[in-house]
């Protein structure tokens, strides 16, 4: 099985999360509003990062599905903060060359007359470096 | 080989309930350690007054080690926690004065850890022997 210690450490350092604190209760995934959109779920992010299985996460669209709603952070009994792990994995993916998920050219197709700027700004922050 | 020829004098303060029994167990199992180690029995590691340690150094000891129960296992519930704080402060002070930090040690040895006791003493004696004679406390106040 893949065990990328370098990326594991990098994610731990960036996110400030200690994945060993996880007691595998699944409350993060039980509370996640984007669960159905995800291939890998919040608890899997924590567990896979702890095991150094990072590539599957980097290659999955799950990293763009986290809504940053922080419900998992709020409700985790162990203070693990799964959303921060997802965020760190996403940044590593997005910082790789040519990895932008969205470009300005994509925008016109997405907007309607009511689309708030906030939506585009947020999406850009999440999908591009 | 000549470097290790020096025979140091080591004073070990051992708590009656854990480390002293651990030393007895080392004996029962015939686990050898240098005869340079001389044990003084105290009821608890927290009985060890810094003055005893300084006195030992001043009278020629080359190393002083304090052994107590593992934190959480103190016979008196909290004695070794005080030891831990006192000795952390004292040893840091001795280091501050330029006394070699390898000459002092605190080790937690349970009554079941005869092997650990012997290993600890072997290791400590070796490190202290490598430093040679303890002159610094003697010399701390040398009139020039």
């Amino acid at each position, binding site marked *: 099985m893949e065990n990328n210690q370098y990326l594991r450490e990098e994610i731990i350092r960036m996110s400030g999360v200690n994945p060993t*604190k996880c*007691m*595998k*209760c*699944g*409350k*993060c*995934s*039980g*509370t*996640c509003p984007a*669960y*159905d959109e995800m291939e890998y*779920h919040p608890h899997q992010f924590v567990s896979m990062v702890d095991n150094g299985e990072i590539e599957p996460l980097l290659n999955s669209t799950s990293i763009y599905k986290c809504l940053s709603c922080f*419900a998992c952070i709020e*409700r985790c*009994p*162990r*203070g693990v903060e799964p959303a921060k792990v997802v965020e760190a994995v996403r940044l590593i993916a997005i910082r790789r060359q040519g990895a932008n998920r969205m470009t300005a050219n994509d925008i016109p197709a997405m907007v309607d007359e009511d689309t708030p700027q906030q939506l585009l700004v947020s999406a850009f922050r999440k999908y591009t470096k | 080989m000549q470097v290790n020829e020096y025979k140091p*004098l080591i*004073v070990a303060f051992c708590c*009656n309930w854990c480390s*002293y029994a651990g*030393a*007895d*167990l*080392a*004996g*029962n199992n*015939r*686990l*050898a*350690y240098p*005869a340079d180690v*001389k*044990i*003084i*029995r*105290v*009821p*608890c590691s*927290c*009985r*060890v*007054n*810094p*003055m*005893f340690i300084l*006195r030992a150094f001043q*009278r*020629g*000891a080359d190393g002083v080690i304090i052994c107590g129960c593992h934190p*959480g296992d103190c*016979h*008196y*519930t*909290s*004695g070794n926690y*005080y030891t831990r704080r006192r000795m952390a402060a004292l040893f840091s002070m001795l280091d501050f004065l330029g006394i070699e930090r390898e000459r002092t040690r605190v080790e937690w040895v349970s009554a079941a850890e005869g092997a650990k006791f*012997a290993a600890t003493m072997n290791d400590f004696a070796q490190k202290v022997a490598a430093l040679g004679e303890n002159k610094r406390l003697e010399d701390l106040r040398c009139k020039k």
Partner: protein
Amino acid sequence: MQRVGVFVCWCGSNIAGTVDVQAVSEALKNEPGVVFSTNYQYMCSQAGQDMIKNAVKEHRLTGIVVCSCSPRMHEATFRKTAAAAGINPYMVEIANIREQCSWVHKDMLTGTEKAIILGKAAVAKVNLNTPLIPGESPVTKRALVIGGGIAGIQTALDIADAGFPVDIVEKQPTIGGKMAQLDKTFPTLDCAACILTPKMVDVAQNENIRIFSYSEVTEVKGFVGNFDVTIKKKARFVNEDICTGCGACVEKCPMKKVPNEFNLGMDNRHAIYIPFAQAVPKVATIDPNACNMLKNGKCGLCARVCAAGAIDYKQKDQFIEEKYGAIVVATGFNPISMEKFDEYAYSQSKDVITSLEFERLTNAAGPSAGKLIRPSDGKHPHTIVFVQCVGSRCESCAEKGKEYCSKICCMYTAKHAMLTRDKYPDTEVYVFYIDVRTPGKNFDEFYRRAVEEYGVKYVKGMVGKIVPEGDKLKVQASDLIANRQLHIDADLVVLAAAIEPDKSARPLATMLTASMDTNDFFTEAHPKLRPVESPTAGVFLSGACQGPKDIPETVSQAGAAAAKVIGLLAKDKLMGNPCVAQSDELMCNGCSTCANVCPYGAISYEDKEFRMPDRTTKIRRVAAVNPAVCQGCGACTVACPSGAMDLKGFANSQIMAEVDAICK
């Protein structure tokens, strides 16, 4: 000057094989104070001991050094020998030349050299030994049990059965505690009332037991064997001695909308009430916050209907002072508040309840007469979701919840689920768990039965959110095994709330100088070897005040605590360890530093008058060690800045002398 005799043991070849015993006894002859030195094959043998006794007589010895095996082996033996020879047993010192010398060193030269040094150290110490006599203190043969739950009840019954008087102090109007609120008990499913209430009656009828119900301990002074305790008996406005518990007053009381705490507020009681039918003592109590008569002098119905004339609106709090030899803490637990866990909508829906509320809902004497209903509309619930570990096993720095496992929830949840399925086979029952922890006799079998025989659906995962909508509770959870998010429309949700020590425990611990951990559980004197004793001598622990416990465990600990109490009360006098701390008043600053480190609360302070050289007097605060409480660790001796505090048997000068002897 001491007259010291030195006795070097060969221990067959155990010592003599590596140590030249003759050389040792010769060398030690020249040490200061030594008037006699010899060696012998087996010092611990009868012949060896006789040799010591004779030498004491012949050479008028005042101190003895035995160079032999570890003092942990034969110190007691040689102390007895000394006593038999007519000198104080604490005038004996052992030089450990077997375990710590002959057995760990190989050649005769180093072995002998070290044995001599160890012998010298022992001689140097014994020269400074003083005869020590263990202190004695009398024992008041009466025990106090604080808390009248199953733990307190069992402890009190066991002590009383041994013939000692016991008082139970219970802050509620009745004894019985949490167990009285339970329906059935795991793993045998006998009804809690059936096994508890006979015990409550036993307590009431036992001549050795007094119950102070509706009472609290307000002050504790003294020490082991001699506690002085003040008990506040709160005014219940009913004369306990006269009240027959007939209940006529309750029936007539017009104030009937007071939330009933016994049923956790799920129904109401009257302002004058008897908590439940089997209450002990079965007497009424008036709630002063609800009673019109007490609040504004209007009503008085209960006094009019009471045939016994037991109502007394003028009753005042009473303070009772009593002496005890031992105190047992049995203050128990409570479920934590669910206030901070509103992702489970406890505050938003009446149909989200705690497990203790569930107990009342299924109890035949409960608010629904044992019929499982939804508290909101009284309807029968079809889908029931149990959530485990609510507030247990949280991160230590978490803002909500507790760090520890509450231990009892797995089993009672299995019980609830099983009973529900048993009684109402039309229900669907889900249990969300992180781990199912069922160590205990017949416990795992019980849980497996819930799954295999009763069809309870155990889901590995945690509930993330509960949304009350319409008459449903929309439960959103994770199913970790299936790796999916579950959505269940439930009718009733039961939260297994973490348990915490009763709030009264912390102030009580302060009164008792008993230590507590960060969670407010009482600390035991030793986690493995003295689990029912507090580090404070004479204070014992029973039940959940020491940590989460189920009933079988509580009862066994209660019995163990009782055994310890009986062992103490059986003594007429307490003999202390003579190696205790002692403060030199002339040097003591009264600074309280020593008391800070004393784990036993053995040090107190008093103002003492001192005569000064210039004939004036001076009043100073000085420390006094209670030898009955001190265990002799010596923490205080090092904490003391002036060196006023010293430890008998391990005095500063003695240890210093050993250091000097070794480092010569």
